[in-house]
């Protein structure tokens, strides 16, 4: 029995329309779930969840902390305008933000973070350093925050980097060493020397 071509076409059109309706229903439900939170609420939660991680990442890719702050501010601003406000919801937000940061960094900077002096490598002094820095940090509790900040600004860039990474971002020496592409001993030595220099400066 010959197949009626018009009938076949009608069936195809019918199934195609059905598929489209299912697809449409799925997208409506999906968007509804994703957009249940207001854009501002979504952005706030993303901002607080990812701030430390992104700041840390950008910090080690920028020549200085102030430029790193500019990059982070630009990334979040663009994220809000072009992603959140347009109802887009990336699955892995942190990775997305880091990709955005890389674009911003490659656009702005070719300078790398200042590396620690090679003199600090393999000095064999790591075993003389304290096990932790709690006692040393307590020395600074008697000073005002602004006074401490001014003293930190008087340190060299490399010293500021390790102090900010260790104290502000709470990274361990191994993590800092990876970021700075230096040995762990060199980083540790630089850190404790910087703390001592800071204490001597404030003690004057």
């Amino acid at each position: 029995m010959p197949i009626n071509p018009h009938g076949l076409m009608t069936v195809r059109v019918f199934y195609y329309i059905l598929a489209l309706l299912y697809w449409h229903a799925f997208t409506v439900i999906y968007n509804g779930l994703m957009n249940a939170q207001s854009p501002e609420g979504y952005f706030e939660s993303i901002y607080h969840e990812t701030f430390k991680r992104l700041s840390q990442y950008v910090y080690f890719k920028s020549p200085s902390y102030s430029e790193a702050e500019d990059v982070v501010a630009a990334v979040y601003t663009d994220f809000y305008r072009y992603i959140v406000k347009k109802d887009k919801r990336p699955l892995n937000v942190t990775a997305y933000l880091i990709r955005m940061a890389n674009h911003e960094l490659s656009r702005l900077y070719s300078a790398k973070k200042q590396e620690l002096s090679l003199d600090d490598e393999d000095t064999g002094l790591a075993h003389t350093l304290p096990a932790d820095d709690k006692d040393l940090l307590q020395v600074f509790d008697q000073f005002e925050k602004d006074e401490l900040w001014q003293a930190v600004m008087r340190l060299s860039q490399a010293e500021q980097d390790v102090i900010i990474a260790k104290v502000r971002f709470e990274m361990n020496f191994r993590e800092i060493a990876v970021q700075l592409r230096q040995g762990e001993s060199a980083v540790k030595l630089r850190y404790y020397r910087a703390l001592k220099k800071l204490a001597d400066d404030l003690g004057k």
Partner: protein
Amino acid sequence: MPQLKRSLEDHVFNQQTMADRIRVANLQHEVERSAPMNKKWFWTAGVAAALVVALTASLTLMAPPVLNKSAESVPAATNLAVDAEATAYAMISVDINPSFEVYVDEHGIVIKSKAKNDDAKTLDVQDLLGKTQEDALKAIIERATEAKFIDASDDLDDYVIVSTVILKKDDPDAEANQESMGAKIKAALAEEGALDDTTKVAVIKSTLRDKFAADEKAIPLGLYIIKGMLQVDSDGNPVEDDGTWIKVADFVRNPDALAKLKERAEIVESNNEINKEAQADRQAEREQTKDAAAAARDAAKEARKTEPIGPTEATNP
């Protein structure tokens, strides 16, 4: 938490400061795009309507809906502009001529800046959004100097009137916060290099009442305040209001008015060591010239004393 960590958290990647900065940048972006957004809305609606008509009129199958639809909101420009003022914590009026109003939040970050007269509109202050109040004031003074509204090349003092007002009337800490704001502004302007040696800034604490009165009369707050100083004479008697408004430059040329300003305001001057030395050198030169002129006068006087009054044998044999 160690104090060093607290200090670094305040100054390096301060989450709150960064959030304020992002909020202000987005606010500015919304203001900039809101006017053309209305036209875009109508175009989009018109094209969408035409497409719907075309689709329903034909038997063509629909394309799948886009997963991430663009949800264009339509904030009105005027609403956003009012929102910035409505949410501002304080306002700083800067009167040179030109005159500006700078609105800041609780952290002293600029969320809106407004040009108050035609001269002010010639200076671009939109990039002040997101800056600290101190940096914004320095930028305004610098731009006014570059545009020759402040003449730094002469020896005459130029005055800038900076009036602060706390806009949140129910804030129990308003007075303390206004003091703190004034102190920060003075400290920033007193930094070396912030002001030219002939530029002086008069920082005045003002009230909401003054602000409303100035708004009602549609004049900048600083000009309203200095006008008020002229409405009482040196004996405290009221002076008839002639309905005119005085410019800052004209006001400070009047010694009595300047004295009243110095009583009411705290004056900030340049702390620039290089400029101070140059100023001292100029002062020394003026003193020398004055002394030389006085010596010459004295010598001439002496010479006239020793000259005979009448004719002598030599002149009248």
